[in-house]
């Protein structure tokens, strides 16, 4: 089983993540250490890694490709942005830009309650579960799968983008929401807050990895992989795959929303461009590059692709799309399982002398 064989790399990656989290915590307390900029970059990468994990859960372990995960990511992003704006407004009295643009005197009714963080989190979960639940139930019940499902999810995120581009929805329209000032009463731009957000993101990433790992090594995880490999057989054996798929789909949506909640406070803006079908496709590319069906693969893919993107969008923005498409073609044709292929290949070479003695007799016996 995939999950078993990648045990050591998994522990290594979790160890690295925990180390980074420790480093961030130290930097927050001590005068030296990571700069705020670097910490912010690490925090954003961690949020993307969580997002990649959410897609890997549904694509890598259940074989369902969603091209609409940007929708759930944005739900988390929008609700946290609403919390930040409402919180800033309640403490400092700063009126959000979009209210001034629209000439509205007060917040629309559905903004009430967003001043409390707990309410915002609950609202995120509720909205995400509602949308993913209804859409998932309707799609899986009629056994819409494969390419059909991917295309319909893409249309879903596209329609959501069109909707959010409207200025009269009360979510900031095409300008989105920005100008956050406070987070739990602390100024959001201070070094301490930036590093704390990054540290939280990295810790959440580690916890998500461990959580996914626990889920996958349970009986439930076994069922997921069984459904991916042969759904018909699993159904014949008497398992309700509709419920299974629906549960994983909703869980995946929740994790994506969590990633959005981590991401938006760190970049300081959310706008409907986050809902562009291109971003949702990019998430699939991160997972494919890293290696779908491996938790470590998703994390490494997200970090790697986004690190290159951060670097290139500043250094040579014109080249980035070409690099990205080249990367996809390479992954699709040369490393069908992503960088995991490369890693296995390398590990075998470097550990050849030790491994051969241990593993060869076993191979012979089998």
């Amino acid at each position, binding site marked *: 089983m995939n999950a078993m064989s990648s045990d050591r790399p998994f522990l290594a990656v979790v160890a690295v993540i925990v180390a980074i989290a420790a480093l961030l915590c130290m930097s927050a307390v001590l005068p030296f250490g990571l700069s705020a900029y670097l910490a912010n970059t690490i925090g954003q990468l961690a949020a993307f890694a969580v997002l990649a994990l959410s897609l890997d859960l549904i694509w890598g372990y259940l074989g369902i490709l969603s091209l609409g995960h940007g929708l759930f990511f944005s739900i988390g992003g929008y609700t946290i942005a609403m919390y930040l704006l409402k919180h800033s407004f309640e403490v400092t009295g700063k009126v959000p830009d979009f209210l001034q643009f629209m000439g509205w005197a007060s917040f629309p009714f559905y903004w009430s309650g967003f001043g409390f963080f707990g309410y915002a989190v609950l609202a995120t979960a509720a909205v995400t579960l509602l949308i993913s639940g209804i859409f998932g139930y*309707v799609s899986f019940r009629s056994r819409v799968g494969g*390419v059909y499902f991917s295309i319909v999810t893409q249309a879903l995120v596209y329609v959501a983008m069109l909707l959010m581009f409207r200025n009269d929805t009360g979510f900031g329209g095409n300008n989105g929401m920005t100008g956050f000032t406070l987070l739990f009463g602390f100024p959001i731009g201070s070094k301490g807050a930036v590093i704390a957000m990054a540290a939280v993101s990295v810790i959440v990433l580690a916890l998500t990895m461990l959580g996914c790992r626990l889920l996958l090594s349970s009986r439930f995880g076994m069922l997921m992989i069984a459904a991916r490999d042969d759904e018909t057989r699993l159904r014949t054996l008497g398992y309700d795959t509709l419920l299974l798929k629906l549960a994983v789909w909703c869980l995946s949506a929740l994790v994506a929303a969590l990633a959005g909640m981590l991401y938006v406070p760190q970049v300081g803006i959310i706008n409907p461009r986050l809902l562009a079908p291109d971003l949702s496709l990019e998430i699939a590319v991160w997972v494919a590059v890293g290696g779908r069906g491996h938790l470590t693969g998703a994390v490494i893919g997200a970090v790697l692709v986004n690190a290159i993107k951060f670097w290139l969008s500043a250094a040579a923005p*014109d080249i980035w799309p070409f690099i990205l498409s080249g990367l*996809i073609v390479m992954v699709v044709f040369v490393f*069908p399982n992503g960088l995991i292929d490369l890693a296995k290949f390398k590990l075998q070479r470097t550990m050849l002398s030790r491994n051969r003695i241990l593993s060869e007799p076993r191979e012979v016996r089998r």
Partner: protein
Amino acid sequence: MSYVRTAIGVVLAALVVASSGGARADQRADMIAKVCGDAATMGDAARGFIRTAADGSSDERVWAAQIATALMDRKLSCDADGAVAANADGPIDAVTRAKRQPLGEARSPLLNLRNRALLETAQAALALRGSQDLGRRTAALRTLERQASSLPEQLFEAAIHDETDPALKAQIAAVAQAAALNSPDVAKRISAIQRIADVPTRRALALIAPLTKDPAYASNPDFLRAVDSATAAINRGITIGDTLATIYNGLSFASILFMAAIGLAVIFGLMGIINLAQGEFIMLGAYVTWLVQEALRHIAPTLLDWYLLIAIPVVFLVTAVIGIVLEAALLRHLYRRPLMSLLATWAVSLFLINLIRVTFGTQNLQFVTPFYITGGLPVIGDFIFTWNRMFAIAFAIVTLVATWAVVRLTPLGLNIRAVTQNRTMAGCIGIPVRSVDMLAFGLGSGLAGLAGLALAPIYSVNPQMGQNFVIDSFMVVVLGGVGTMAGTVVAALGIGQVNVLIEPIWGAVAAKVIVLLMIIGFLQWRPEGLFAVKGRRK
């Protein structure tokens, strides 16, 4: 003899002119007095000029035009003895047109805004009757058109009588209808109302609607009946026209959707691959069309107008070849991994968009609008049968017939259908499955390219254009199902019409949301699409 007769004629003519000249001079002096009076009398003078334009003799109209122009240009000075107009050779008397200097303190009358507008109308009316220049007459008609209902109908009747240019004559006749509404003769007004109601547009309604406040509406039952039935007829016409326009717009949107989706459906049916780069083939088609246009501009400028037709084979071949190359290089490795093929084709789309962006830039391309797709045919109400939309519809119908013929009547089509139904069995009986895939992909890409050609003259062409169609055309494929062309046709028509129906009520975004929800709901009922071929689920 002839000399004598001519001499008598000349004398008689001179006598007539002289005798009428006296009365005319009085009239002229009266007008000048009004022009030199206060604002109210100046308004009377302007209305007088309009009346002159309607029924005055040609001499009188020339004189009135001169005075009106002088007044507008502030070249007229009033004095104790009437008025003096500044002329190129020096000042002349306004009435007698003899040279004289202004007496004592001359003042130049000042027009207020209301009178200026009136005088402009008078000038236009005089120009319509008297100007030798067709352009000036046309411009004058434009000015008069806006207030036709306040002008005397004789003005237009006389103008129609004198007009030599047939096109302008027809235009004057159209404007005259509005003027006839103003006739003192109720019978004439009623016939004018009926004539206007013959062309039921919103403009006609705007002319008829105010008549309900007319005194005759209350007093004359015939007039009342005429106005009411005309209003009803016009409203009916507008409703029919709007309905037709909606259907027509939906048809043209559907035909573009169909052209974008048919290639997608063929490829999906055959190989189970959704080509996310389909929109970029539309974009490539439009760019190739532009290149053909530019090539013609340099090589054979006389054929420039026909670039849309000349480009058809070029666009099809170029996009088909690009599709075949793509299939042979990339997609053939992905038939067993349809989800990965989504990513791979997206990579292709990203690559193509950016390649075009780097090569051509992001600005919209400029297309010549050839004569055969300019303008349109007004049908009923405000519905105009525009040729550019008709071009797209006709093009889609031709494409549909041609594709149907290829799929149904050619050996390639037979092979495509066989491979779509059962790939393994088709391979077993000796059909070259690989080359069928390749050619079908070329066919699909070529059809998308043709969609780009049809879009080129009616849509903004830039590297991003394909993105706007691709999701809609996926929806067509999902809704229509694979295996039959009928599914694609019906789905394209349905989505096109629903979009156009909902758009004016709730807006374009709501239309997209509702269409998507309808499709998701529909998939509950028929998960394989509208016209899916019955068989085992793969």
